Structure formats: C-alpha cells, structure tokens
C-alpha cells in the first residue's frame, strides 16, 4: 500500500532540509558581511523609526558625507561661492593674506577644523563597524541561547520521562465534555 502523497511543487522533506541547512549556516556564523550589514542596518532603522526619524537618514548619511560633514583644507577659509565675483574675492583674499596674518594666525584653526572633519568621518566608520560587531555578537548570543534551550529540552525530557507514569494519573478529564480534546 502506498502511503506517500506527492503533490507537485511541495516536498516537505526538501523544505525542512533547506530550513535546517539555513539554520546550520547561521549556527556556524556563516552570515555574509552583506547579510550582517543588512541586519545591523535594519536594527538601526527600527530604532530611528521609533523616534520618527527619516527612514532614509542612515542611507543618506553613509552615501552623502558632504551633506553632513564639512570638507576642510588650507584654502577653504579663502573660498567664495559667488561665481565670478567670488573668484575675484578669493584672489583679493590671497593677495591680502600676508596683511591679515599681521592681525591673527588662521593656521591652528585650519588645522583643527581639518582634523575635526577627518575625525567625523572616522567616527561614522567606527560606529558602523561597532553596529556590525554588536550584530555579530547578538547572533552568537542567539545561537548560544538556542543551544542552551536544546540542552534544557534534553534535561527536561529526561525529567518528563521520569514523571510520565505518575502524571498520567494526576490529570483527569471532565466528563461530559468532548470534541475539543484532540485525541
């Protein structure tokens, strides 16, 4: 007698095999860097969303540093954004540079702001990597929790087997009620 039902497109054993393979990969820490970044971003997004931040904030933050950081080099203080007039202004400022240096020294300020700009970029890089590392640790923690649960289940199984015979007499069903007790 055949006991197998094979419907087209659904093979429970194949589905379970792929589920187990996936779980095994996770247990071995086989997340790709891309997957970990994705998870890390998702978690950060969730936090940001909770405070009504723009959901694209993180993406923009990483993609367009010019929007949030400033670029600073030794000529920045002389630059102008006023087109042709600006170019004339910049030339004048350069000419007058030795004069203005008689009043104050802009070099320490230029150096500090330039370093601060580099530090800003570094902090973002550091925080992103920290988020990724925290995600990895979190996944490892989940894996340990799962192993702990599996071990706990084994211990409980032993205890349950020990109690099986006693417990079968502890609970009694209510007479007159049937139909929803499964079998």
């Amino acid at each position: 007698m055949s006991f197998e039902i094979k419907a087209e497109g659904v093979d429970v054993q194949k589905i379970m095999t792929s589920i187990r393979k996936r779980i095994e990969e996770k247990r071995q820490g086989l997340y790709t860097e891309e997957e970990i970044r994705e998870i890390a971003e998702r978690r950060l997004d969730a936090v940001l969303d909770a405070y009504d931040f723009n959901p694209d904030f993180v993406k923009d933050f990483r993609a367009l540093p010019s929007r949030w950081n400033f670029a600073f080099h030794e000529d920045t203080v002389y630059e102008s954004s006023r087109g042709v007039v600006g170019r004339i202004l910049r030339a004048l400022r350069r000419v007058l540079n030795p004069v203005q240096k008689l009043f104050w020294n802009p070099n320490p300020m230029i150096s500090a702001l330039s370093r601060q700009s580099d530090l800003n970029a570094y902090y973002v890089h550091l925080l992103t990597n920290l988020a990724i590392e925290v995600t990895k640790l979190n996944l490892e923690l989940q894996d340990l929790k799962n192993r702990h649960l599996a071990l706990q289940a084994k211990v409980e199984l032993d205890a349950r087997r020990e109690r099986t015979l006693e417990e079968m007499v502890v609970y009694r069903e209510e007479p007159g009620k049937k139909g929803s007790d499964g079998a």
Partner: protein
Amino acid sequence: MKLGFVVQRYGLDIAGGAEYHCRLVAEHLTRHAEVEVLTTCASDYVTWENHYPEGEEVLNGVRVRRFEVERPRDVYRFAEWSRRVEGPHTEDDERRWLEEEGPLSPRLVAEVALRRSAYDFLVFFSYRYYTTYHGLRAAPERAVLVPTAENDGIHRLSIFPPLFRLPRAIVWNSPEERDMIRADAHNDAVLGDVIGVGSKLPERLDPEGFRRNRGVTGPFLLYVGRIDRNKGCDELFPFFQRYRAETGSALRLVLVGKAVLDVPDDPAIVHLGFLPDQEKWDALAAAEALVIPSRYESLSMVTLEAWWAKRPVLANARCEVLLGQCRRSNGGLYYAHYDEFREALSLVEGDASLRRRLGENGRAYFDAHYAWDIVERKYLELFARLRAEDAARARAS
C-alpha cells in the same frame, strides 16, 4: 459475523483518545457485523470508579455490556509501583504494576474467557490496561489488538513483548507505531495492517462564524487538546512568544481545550476552553495552521481533522508518528527545537500559497487513508484474511 470490542471505558461522554477511537470503529462496523462492546462500569480514567450501572445498554446502535471494577485505582500506590518498575524489578513486579494500573475487572476477563466462542473476533483496545492484557491472554485465538501505543517506554516492560506476539492480528495506528513495537516484540509474524481511524466530519465549515462568535481577529495559530506539559504546551508557549518578539509577527495563538497548565498572561495567546465539535471544526477552518507540540502521540486525530479542513500542521518532530505523518502526507512542517519552529512557522505564516498546498496535500492524504469507507474496508479485509486462515486450517485438519 459477530465482533466483540474490549475496552477499558466506553460511553458517549468519554473523550479519551483510545476509547473514542474504539467507539467510532465499533459504531461504523455495525453496518457490516453484529457488534458488542465488553467494558467496565468506569468513567474516570484516573480512579476507574464504577460510574455506569452494571449490565447492558445500547448506545448508537451498539450493544454495550458493562462489568464492575473490583476496586478503584489508588493513585499513590500506582505511582509507587510505577517508580518501582522503572528501576531494577521482576516480572511479578510488572504484573503487580498492571493490577494497580487497572481497571481491575476480573469479571470482564472471565466473561471474555467464558464466552469467547460466541464471537468471531474480539478486538482489544490499548495494550497497557489490565482488561486488554488479561482479556487477550484469555482468548488469543480470536484476538485482534489495537495497541494505540505511544513512545513512552511502557511497551518495553517485559510482560508486553510476549503479549504482542499473541493476537491473530494487530491494527496499527501508524507505520511508526508498528516499527516501534516490532523492534522490541519481534512480532513480525503476526498479521497486521496500518488502519487508524476516521473522524466524525462536519456538514459545513463556518470560519467567519467562529471569528464572529469568539471575537478572534487576524491570523492565528491553533492548538487543540489538553493544555498540558505532557502535550508539549510548556515548550510551545515560550517558543511562540519568542517567535513574535523576534519576528514582529502579528500571529496569535488560540488554544482550545482544558488547561491543566498555566496559560501565559499574554494578549497574543487566547484560551477559549472546551468548544463543541462544530466550533472546533470552524476554528480549524479559520486558523492559518494547527500546531501539535506533543511528543507522545499514537495517531493524533486532530491532525487528521486539520488536514480534512485543508489546514497545514506544524508538528513536533520529536514525535516519530507526527514526523512520519507530515512526511507521508506532505501536509505539514515540523520542528525539533526553537530554530526550526521559527523558520517553519515563519515560512507557513508568510506564504499563503504554501499553506494552501500543504492543506490540500493533507486533505488528499486524509481522503486516501482515513475516510470511513477505507477504514471499514481495511478492517473487513483483515477479518476476511483471518477467516480464510481459519478455513484453511480447518481443511488441513
């Protein structure tokens, strides 16, 4: 053909798995044979106290003959003997354990021994009770055993393997049950067939009515059965809560059945208590899937009922019967630990097409193996083979 069914309890108000199974089969076979049930006066499976009057009555067309239980079960003494047979012990200890297990009804056994020739076959339900052990030994030449065995280790007690070699035939609930018993009893020579049992099917399903009447909204996972540690609910609750927390799922867990375990105070877990049969079917039809967290199942009729309602199941893979049923039917996924629970439930919850196809496979499996005409035919074929054997033996002698 006259059939005698021997079972520890019998009644329209008895919901226990093996007893309900026995009643359904007995009632359906009245279409093909004269059926009589030999049972005790007990209603309560804990104490076996005499509840029904001794004597005869007719229930749903089946003549029922009841015999008194000599003494009710002393649960403490039984627990003591249970502990004893788990350690080093003798065969006499096991027989004493069986006596404490009950239902102790020597009059029923004596009746089986005295009137066995009045029946063509005697069908004994549940191997682990006094009535089956002694009744079957009193009439092995006419005995058909329906063991309803679970993988709880009881069948390995030394008194039982010889019992499994005695009957003329064995009706198994599943191939896993058959393999489990055969591995210990080495009773391959005994004729047998995997038959199981059908269900009392509803005329219609009303999922919307269920939702309306019970105030259940949104998608939900359904559990039907006693809410009990032995049924795996102590594992199901934390698994489900963790699943929701980790995935952000909006799925709810709806529980149907009596609670003997504390149900967590969580709005996502809804306990409805006992439901009438029709409402249970409607709940099955309304659910995304049925979850069966039990490790100890001989068949799980509710799993079959979910499949009839075209609903997938999520079963405990540590129960070999459920694992086998899911694999054979392609009607459900299974889990052995939380990771698998999460992945499998996530898949079932997120893919309506998969749910539909699993449910359809389950229904096809039910129709192929558990429709009543098939169950009845298998019983009748088994009896016919036994009668053919008898005829051949008579000719030879």
